[in-house]
């Protein structure tokens, strides 16, 4: 068993000691990880679930991506919004997504949201909070529409509406005021849009545009990427720079050389013998 484990690869922790020494001796600081400050939310409506997210990714105080995608696919009708360290959310949802696909091929049945939830929570608990991924998992399966929240240490909640991330309080305020049971699709999209906007305007860690994902029991999943573009740059330099001819001095004009060549179109059928 040990021989088998040694023959496989995995993570290499060789650089951790070096990092500690660098920090102690030279006072070097680790580069900041790319986090998604974030407002993410999900709501259960009459025919399924609606997930929403903002699109800002930050590296410390700098916005490093103004239009990133925070809604990740786990399976056809199970999607997951992620807050926390970008690499952690993307890779953990990717890993669980691939496991769900293998599971679906092995069992031949449509995947359930609770399966994805159990795998996510076991994986996050195994890593004791070192994988900093706070997720809103939402999807439809044979049992209906579900929304779950998963915290980085591995605890989960099942809720009719949920928000996560630094803008979660702003979004939750909108949800608490506006949620009703059995909303229809338009009302649900509207409510999620307002909740994400509350996060975008009132939280520094969230910004950019609003992304919405509609998962219906009977229809195909609808990804409304950049449903609302709220932070367009109003003033842009006009297109390409145009320099008038004569701006740079010419060394030689090679026009003559090429004018003496002729180009013929050849029929490109290959001759087989």
């Amino acid at each position, binding site marked *: *068993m040990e*021989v088998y*484990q040694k023959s*496989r*690869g995995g993570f290499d922790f*060789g650089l*951790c000691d070096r990092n500690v020494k660098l920090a102690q001796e030279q006072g070097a600081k680790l580069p900041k990880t790319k986090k998604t400050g974030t407002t993410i939310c999900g709501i259960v409506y009459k025919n399924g679930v609606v997930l929403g997210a903002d699109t800002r990714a930050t590296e410390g105080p700098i916005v490093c991506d103004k239009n990133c995608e925070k809604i990740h696919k786990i399976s056809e009708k199970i999607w997951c919004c992620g807050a926390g360290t970008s690499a952690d959310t993307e890779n953990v949802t990717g890993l669980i997504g691939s496991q769900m696909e293998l599971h679906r091929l092995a069992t031949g049945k449509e995947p359930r949201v609770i399966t994805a939830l159990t795998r996510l929570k076991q994986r996050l608990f195994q*890593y004791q909070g070192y994988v900093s991924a706070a997720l809103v998992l939402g999807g439809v399966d044979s049992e209906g529409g579900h929304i779950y929240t998963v915290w980085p240490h591995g605890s989960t909640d099942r809720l009719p509406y949920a928000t996560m991330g630094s803008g979660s309080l702003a979004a939750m305020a909108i949800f608490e005021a506006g949620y009703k049971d059995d909303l229809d699709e338009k009302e649900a999209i509207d409510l999620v849009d307002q909740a994400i906007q509350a996060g975008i305007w009132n939280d520094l860690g969230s910004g950019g545009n609003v992304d919405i994902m509609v998962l219906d029991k009977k229809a195909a999943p609808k990804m409304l990427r950049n449903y609302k573009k709220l932070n367009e740059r109003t003033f842009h330099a006009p297109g390409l720079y145009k320099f008038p001819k004569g701006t740079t001095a010419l060394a030689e004009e090679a026009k003559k050389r090429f004018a003496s060549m002729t180009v013929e179109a050849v029929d490109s059928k290959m001759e087989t013998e």
Partner: protein
Amino acid sequence: VGTAAAMATDRKSIPILREPLDTLRTKKTSVDNSASHPVQLIQEEHNVNIAEGKMRMLAKIHGVHVPMRMKMDQTILSQHKRLHVPGMKPSFVGLETMLGMDETIEFEDYLNDPEFSEKQVDIHTEMEKSMFPKLRK
């Protein structure tokens, strides 16, 4: 096998000499069992702990012979003929089928595959290590 499993689950930070220290092979001159990062400990011990837990549960439910037979099968299937060298990979088809690892894709399958590592390895040294793995008293 029993003592190896006990050592894996009881890995503590107190630096006690558990096996004879082979300085010439591993270049370690002090007994230092601490890992560079807590996640390294998790990666090394988690699967082993889960497997041991399952064996203990089977022993309590079905009797001690069940995990004995399973461990025997696993030991037989863990034997490999090919050397563990970049370029060649020992194949554990039977063990993977038995453990269910042929149906999963984990970090170990695509990160840092030792088959593609760029270290220069002396085949004779590797053969010696595989034939005579432990330092005898």
